[in-house]
């Protein structure tokens, strides 16, 4: 073996290693076309302004999004005993047989409504004749992820469509026709990153996101990459955060009432590029910019969409949450059941990765921080949904929600189930 050969190997491998990705030295697509002329710089630049741009460094045939499970998982097949929680906590299956279960909201008398994405349904989980049952209250909707109970009405957001079901808890056996509020909200129709998370703010307004319709691209900041708030009737739209790639979970700090949100970082930038974020909107910076597409995580410029001073005036995260882990639902814990270190801490779900070779996420984290977002400390809360040695997962935690008794409900989209985590006797 010669010095030349080892240098050749070094030169072809080092860029891939430096990029932080376990990429093959030769892009797969190039290997497929014997006669193709390589794209010009102008063609690449043109492509970057659209949705589908794959940097040459990232051609990897083993990274594709996780397929959903659209069929029922029987109770006996849910490996709840594999879930790990801190000492003193207990996990039980609270509901099952609801494929695609994602975001949750609770009605006054205990019914829990559950949004989904692919399967297009909204479920109700409620007590009937002393038993917990579930039923489909809406279906054939386009990714009805956003659900919100307010004043006895259930709001459902499905991409750009908004529905309100009045007095629904009293009519679970005979679901009323909804009021169609789609025209009132007049939302963008793009599908990607446009499934909603709904929250009711201390200012009595409805909050939700309009994500970026691409992985990474130039966006119109007046339309995309935002968290917005509206009056409950769809009037008075205000943008409360910009440069937000895709937030599918937010809540209001119990003391300061400021908005805190998770945000999903971009894909196709390597194993560690770029972290998901936990952000806070300071009261004096409502409408501020959080970086997308130019600046990511703790102030890292985007490698494909380059501008001068990409992180100028960008509000940096409270903490980062790992690249590609898919941080979604989050709530501040305000109950009396859990130990003191949980008071006003955030519990958040990491749905789990697809855009990296070594899977990560697939858990619930606790984040403690000061009310102004300093000294963030992350502690795992619920793990066991993935197996590191085989690089496989069986569950995908998606949302968290507190019950009046201080226990937490955790939805698992992969198992179509909801777990309840309690503490103490």
């Amino acid at each position, binding site marked *: *073996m010669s010095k030349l050969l*080892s240098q050749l*190997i*070094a030169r072809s*491998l080092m860029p891939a*290693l430096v990029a932080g990705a*376990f990429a*093959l030295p030769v892009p*797969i*697509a190039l290997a*497929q076309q014997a006669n*193709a*002329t*390589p*794209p010009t710089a102008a*063609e690449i630049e043109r492509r970057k*302004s*659209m*949705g*589908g*741009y*794959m940097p040459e460094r*990232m*051609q990897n*045939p*083993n*990274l*594709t*999004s*996780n*397929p*959903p*499970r*659209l*069929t029922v998982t*029987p109770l006996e*097949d849910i*490996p709840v005993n594999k879930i790990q929680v801190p000492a003193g906590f207990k996990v039980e299956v609270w509901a099952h047989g609801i494929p695609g279960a994602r975001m949750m909201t609770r009605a006054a008398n205990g019914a829990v409504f559950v949004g989904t994405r*692919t399967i*297009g349904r909204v479920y109700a989980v409620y007590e009937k004749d002393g038993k917990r049952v579930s039923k489909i209250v809406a279906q*054939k909707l*386009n*990714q009805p992820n956003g659900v919100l109970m307010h004043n006895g009405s259930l709001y459902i957001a499905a991409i750009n469509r908004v529905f309100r079901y009045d007095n629904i808890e009293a009519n679970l056996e005979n679901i009323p026709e909804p009021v169609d509020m789609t025209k009132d909200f007049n939302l963008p*129709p*793009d*599908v*990607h*990153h446009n499934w909603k998370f709904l929250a009711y703010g201390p200012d009595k307004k409805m909050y939700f996101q309009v994500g970026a*319709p691409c*992985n990474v*691209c130039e966006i119109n900041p007046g339309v995309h990459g935002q968290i917005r708030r509206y009056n409950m009737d769809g009037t008075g739209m205000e943008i409360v955060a910009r440069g937000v790639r895709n937030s599918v979970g937010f809540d209001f700090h119990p003391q300061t009432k400021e908005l805190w949100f998770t945000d999903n970082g971009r894909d*196709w930038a390597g194993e560690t590029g770029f972290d998901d974020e936990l952000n806070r909107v300071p009261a004096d910076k409502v409408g501020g910019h959080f970086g997308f597409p130019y600046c990511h995580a703790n102030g890292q410029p985007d490698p494909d969409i380059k501008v001068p001073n990409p992180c100028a005036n960008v509000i940096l995260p409270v903490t980062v949450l790992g690249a590609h882990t898919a941080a979604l639902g989050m709530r501040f814990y305000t109950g009396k059941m859990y130990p003191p270190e949980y008071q006003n801490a955030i519990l958040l779900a990491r749905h789990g990765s697809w855009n990296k*070779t*070594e899977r990560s996420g697939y858990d619930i984290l606790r984040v403690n921080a000061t009310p102004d977002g300093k000294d963030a400390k992350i502690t795992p809360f619920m793990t066991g949904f993935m*197996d590191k040695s*085989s*690089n*496989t*997962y*069986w569950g995908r935690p998606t949302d968290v929600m507190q019950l009046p008794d201080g226990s937490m409900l955790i939805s698992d989209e992969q198992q179509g189930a909801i777990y309840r985590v309690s503490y103490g006797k």
Partner: protein
Amino acid sequence: MKQCLTTRWTIIQRVFFLLIIAAAGPAGAQIKGNPERGADKAKTCIACHGQTGRGPMSGVPALSGQQFEFITLQLILIREGLREIPDMSGMLKELKDQDLADIGAFFSAMEPFSPRGTRNDRRFAAGAKLSEIMGCGSCHMKGYVGQRQVPRIINQREEYLAKTLIAYRDNKRSGVDTSMNAVMYKTTDEDIYALAHYLAHQN
């Protein structure tokens, strides 16, 4: 010198090992299909999709050799009314999840669909270049044969590919997730026709 080489080869070995285990995905119960049972249930399907699943009708996709998980998931979307196909409405209403998996297994076991029509070299080259920039092979794999819920697209009907890519771009259709809507964002008609032509005329 020898030490350096060992390190480099170890890196190569590690890369390939990780790529192999990266293919591992969800564990646990996944629905399986039976092609013999599927043949019996697919009698209505072959009226349009063809006896050999080749898709003889314009606008109707070939299904032969398609990824099993892709067909099954799409059939669920169609049954649930999440993909609206007027000619198929009501057809799947009575079918259970297992029936759809059996139909999926039936078509995926067939000889994969072959190309039709003649190749236009200029269009083919334009499509090839686009496929590289857009990274189609990253999810659709080498040879565009697909994997799991990502469909086999090599040699599919050209007009069906074009129609589908346009539907993704215009947010008229999503897959089991919105990956294709993201990829096709703002893509021009001209690019779509080149891509469709390239994919439909592989050897």
